[in-house]
């Protein structure tokens, strides 16, 4: 069959309508815990805006670390992420948003990962949960930490779920049961895979601090 090209030299190419086919570009990590009101352990979740060029995910700027330890409220001298009035904070790109540190028992904290907002080159978001002893109150107070050891088993119920933007659960851990003897758990990574952004579980626990995490990822 013969065909003719309808494009004229110099004419702007016809603009085509496009829909985003990047399903599941947003993810939500929720940690929920419940224990005695007088209990002194605090759970935190953290995420990194990392780049993985084939030798493992790495971060190279403080702005890429979504952690309550990296907020101006928690660490006024060294933290770089501003804390909003409602306690929430985010990376400068807005790709990682944290609901805010909560130290009231029987509560939840969430991290939302929005793939569409992540900077170009960021292709892996490692996710972590930590537990530490701390005084409870409405917010973190600098210097309120204690040196005592804590572990997830100290928390009566502590679960982490990772869900896509439709609310479908992609992964879940019962930290108090599965990682009871540890105080840091690498949950998994949201990574830019063959099908766009997707979640891959890791499920590894160890005893250490969040700085050990940064030591590995920077």
């Amino acid at each position, binding site marked *: 069959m013969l065909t003719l090209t309808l494009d004229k030299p110099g004419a702007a190419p016809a603009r085509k309508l496009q829909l985003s086919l990047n399903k599941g570009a947003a993810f939500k990590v929720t940690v929920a815990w419940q224990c005695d009101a007088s209990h002194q352990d605090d759970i935190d979740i953290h995420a990194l805006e990392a780049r*993985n060029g*084939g030798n493992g995910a790495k*971060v190279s700027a403080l702005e890429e670390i979504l952690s309550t330890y990296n907020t101006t409220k928690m660490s006024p*001298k060294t933290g770089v992420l501003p804390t909003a009035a409602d306690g929430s904070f985010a990376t400068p790109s807005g790709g990682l948003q944290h609901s805010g540190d909560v130290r009231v028992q029987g509560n939840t904290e969430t991290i939302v990962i929005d793939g569409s907002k992540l900077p*170009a080159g960021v292709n892996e978001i490692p996710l972590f949960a930590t537990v530490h002893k701390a005084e409870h109150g409405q917010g973190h107070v600098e210097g309120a930490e204690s040196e005592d050891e804590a572990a997830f088993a100290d928390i009566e119920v502590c679960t982490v779920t990772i869900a896509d933007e439709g609310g479908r659960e992609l992964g879940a851990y019962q930290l108090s049961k599965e990682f009871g003897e540890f105080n840091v758990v690498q949950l998994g990574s949201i990574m830019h895979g063959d099908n766009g952004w997707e979640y891959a579980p890791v*499920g*590894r626990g160890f005893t250490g601090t969040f700085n*050990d995490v940064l030591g590995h990822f920077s």
Partner: protein
Amino acid sequence: MPPAKDKLRPTVIGSEGASPRGPGGSVQPPKDGPARRAPAVKPVIRQPTAMPGTERRRIEVSVRDLQALSPGAKTMLYERARALVGAFVLDRAAQRKAILWGHDLQQTHGGLVTEMLDLARSPVLRQVDGYLARMMDILGSIDLMAVCGHGGDSVMGRLFQGINSRIDTPSELARAQAELEQLLTLVAAALDPLLDLKDRLLRLSNSMQGTAEQVEASAIGALFLSERLRQNDTALAQRFAERSMSLTQTLAQMRQTGSTQELQIEQPMRIIGAIQNVALVVMPAFIGSIASIATLGARKTTISPTEAGELAYRLRDIISQLKT
């Protein structure tokens, strides 16, 4: 003293210190900031970057495996059982975990049963029952035809009017009316506590339902683990088999007592219905009518047999509604 490797210490993120594990454990911010040096492409990665640590390998189980082992449950319960099995870690504490598998649920069930019994014995229920019974006594004693001068015309009837247990004179009716009004006030005041009680019973019933589902999922999970571990750890498998049986028994007990619990919830609902529909709606209108009879009786004005019969019919209707 430097912090021990395994001890928790406060995390401070800062820009000092070159070592990532140093006091700052920090990452140096780039001079240009993160936005400027971001490459335009997003390389595809296939494996997440994993830190060294203890990996929890989950016991693989599918919903289909669980269905084959213990058919007939809701799909949601197999999912829960799968999550329970997934969270089970084979370690030194496995025996203890097996012995305590689902134990908290059985304790929860015991607590809920006790709470349900306490609520079913709530004083407000007995009180309102008493008020309604007294109301029915009074209403059942009213002989409206006689009060209106249409039923107690026999010599014997007139002779015993006033000294029998029946309310068959206008003055007795006026006294009954006053007591009925008092009872209505008391019953109306009990409505709020009764509604609270109903809400608590419903919440408790929902908790029972939720616990029953967890018990069932836990029993399925225990049965699966007993089968899965049979080859490698007979003792542990036996513990799980015992737990599965125990949890199944608890579930059977919960289902057996389910109908009793429904009745316990039904009781305040029935009383609330009686108060709302009869005591607070029909009764005030009826009391208004008998107040008129008492007034007319005092003025020596007679009420026609048809009017009296109509009132007597309404009275019987109220009594029968209160009885049901």
